[in-house]
């Protein structure tokens, strides 16, 4: 990143990237007051991550997906098809509720590009779910058991010629392309290029080009609002995203049920596959974080939760490669921010092993008192607020629960207040009570 980077320790690299992000360098702020507000907000997040004892207040980071648009009465479909509506809603959410981080609006994605690709890994409003809802994962066995060796020997080739043709209908002809290695020398180049020239592959490439253009045009519009969000003094809560290797295999490739059987039927293949996915998952997170100048790499955790597998299975199949991804991100100066979905009450001792790097564990249903007991003062903990109260509670209930949560979790000064669930929706009064109480009661 700069001269002398190689000589820095892992934590020094993370601190350098955090400092660069906090500075707001490169952002055209509306005025100096907004610049100071941005630096204060990002600074609070950085202080909590570093467990800096001079931190002034508990930072507040709502994980919004469709909540900003739904609060304004914008349907899920419009949020995914109208970047002006989505961008304006995200900007208004920030200026209205004044959280310490803005949600990642590009995670809403652009419906027309998904249509062009005939995307089927998810269903989205107007394409499999009702217009007023959010997108939803459509899990299937997209990778057959006999494809483990393909994935293990060459993840990119597997991705391009096996998985994408199944999950992106318009790219189905990629399955008929020969491996790219045919391009290695002049005498072999012809046959490879001929396959690219066949009408079905040409159509697939055109679809890919079209989807890329659609997304570029979309981000050109949405990006204007993202710039305004930062200019108004709000840093983004994530610079990029990646996944735990076991979850890639379970969510996107094999499907939960087949992979759970694989753990008995072909355990060595599962282990080889998750190991093989470590480096690609690191590269994915690092690339996006560096492109966005934001070190926080969001990692949603799914199938390692309490109740999904035994401690022994977690120790063998899930944790080692997740940990390797986290350390790989940290070595590049990024801060892994694990969104720990479900409960992790039985896994906290494992998370403690990462005390020597900067990272965040944002909890969903884990007991926050227990999380603090094991992890407090060692790594940054976050989350734990029940989404049920935001959606069905009263402002008084939210105020009371926020205070209780801060009392339980914030004592070590390494806590970020957050709802433990991605907010597809919210209620105005309770959202206000949540942020207001956090700011008032969260002062150190």
């Amino acid at each position, binding site marked *: 990143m700069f001269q002398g980077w190689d000589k820095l320790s892992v934590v020094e690299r993370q601190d350098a990237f955090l400092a660069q992000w906090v500075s707001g360098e490169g952002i055209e702020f509306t005025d100096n007051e907004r610049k100071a507000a941005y630096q204060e907000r990002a600074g609070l997040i950085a202080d909590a991550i570093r467990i800096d004892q001079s931190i002034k207040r508990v930072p507040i980071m709502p994980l919004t997906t469709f909540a900003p648009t739904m609060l304004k009465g914008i349907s899920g479909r419009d949020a995914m098809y109208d970047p002006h509506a989505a961008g304006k809603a995200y900007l208004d959410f920030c200026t209205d509720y004044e959280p310490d981080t803005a949600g990642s609006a590009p995670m809403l994605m652009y419906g027309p590009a998904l249509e062009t690709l005939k995307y089927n890994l998810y269903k989205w409003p107007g394409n499999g779910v009702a217009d007023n809802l*959010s997108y939803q994962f459509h899990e299937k066995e997209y990778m057959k058991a006999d494809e483990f060796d393909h994935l293990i020997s060459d993840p990119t080739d597997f991705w391009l010629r096996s998985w994408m043709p199944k999950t992106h209908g318009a790219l189905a002809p990629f399955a008929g392309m020969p491996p790219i290695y045919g391009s290695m020398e002049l005498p072999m180049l012809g046959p490879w290029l001929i396959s690219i020239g066949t009408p079905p592959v040409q159509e697939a490439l055109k679809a890919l080009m079209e989807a890329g253009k659609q997304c570029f045009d979309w981000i050109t519009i949405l990006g204007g609002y993202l710039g305004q969000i930062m200019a108004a003094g709000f840093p983004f809560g994530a610079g990029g995203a990646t996944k735990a290797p076991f979850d890639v295999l379970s969510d996107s490739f094999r499907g939960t*049920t087949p992979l*759970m059987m694989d753990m008995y039927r072909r355990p060595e293949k599962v282990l080889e596959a998750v190991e093989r996915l470590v480096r690609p998952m690191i590269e994915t997170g690092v690339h996006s974080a560096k492109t966005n100048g934001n070190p926080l790499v969001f990692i949603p955790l799914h199938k390692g939760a309490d*109740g999904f597998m035994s401690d022994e299975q977690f120790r063998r199949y899930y944790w080692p490669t997740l940990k390797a991804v986290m350390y790989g991100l940290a070595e590049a100066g990024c801060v892994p921010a694990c969104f720990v979905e479900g409960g992790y009450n039985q896994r906290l001792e494992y998370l403690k092993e990462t005390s020597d790097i900067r990272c965040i564990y944002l909890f*969903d249903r884990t007991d926050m008192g227990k999380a603090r007991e094991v992890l407090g003062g060692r790594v940054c903990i976050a989350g734990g607020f029940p*989404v049920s109260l935001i959606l069905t509670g009263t402002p008084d209930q939210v105020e009371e629960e926020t205070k209780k949560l801060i009392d339980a979790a914030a004592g070590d000064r390494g806590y970020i207040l957050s709802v433990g*669930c991605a907010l597809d929706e919210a209620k105005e009064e309770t959202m206000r009570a949540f942020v207001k109480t956090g700011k008032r009661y969260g002062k150190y």
Partner: protein
Amino acid sequence: MTDLKDLLTSVVEMQEDSAIALTVKYLDQGVPALEIFNCYQAALVEIGKRFEKQIYFIPELIMSGEMMRAGAELLKPHLASQDCAGEESKESRKLGKVLMATVEGDIHDIGKNIGTMMMELNGLDVRDIGVDVPADRIIEEAKAFGADVIGLSGLLTLAFDPMKAVVEKLKEQGLRDKIKVIIGGGQMDEQICQYVGADAFVTDAVLGVNYIKGWLS
């Protein structure tokens, strides 16, 4: 009576290949199919205990379901149809019926499927009517099935209101006192249970089965 201990151990320990080989071997030796079937049932009782003790989790639930399916396929041609039917109806009468659905607007099925498998493993008669099911259809299916319990699944927060709609429609039709309602999913808690008007909420399948068994006992 043949000692089928090795088959029982194979099923309980998730040794899929060995369970199939032993089933074939015992059938070839002329061991009555019903005796082998009962051995599988005994294995399931032990597996159920391991779930309770949190020794077994979802991989084992799925594996045991697969082994039961494979075992039943081998045994079926050798079992007199009335033997099987007799066993099943006895179980149904004993425990009760559960209708399972993921509510309208939510297409997630993993939680529902896990809940269904765990209930079947525990001898409940379960009818699974799929995902994204409107409230009216859930109630119609529950009535037609004669359900004692309706299990509503949902991963998204957007499932809260459709769950509430099912309970309200049950009340409107005067069925609320006759049918228990249990809700399950990652974001279920006491607050949502009260909001929906359900009898219980769960975030794990073992607890769900325990609630239902308690109601039906």
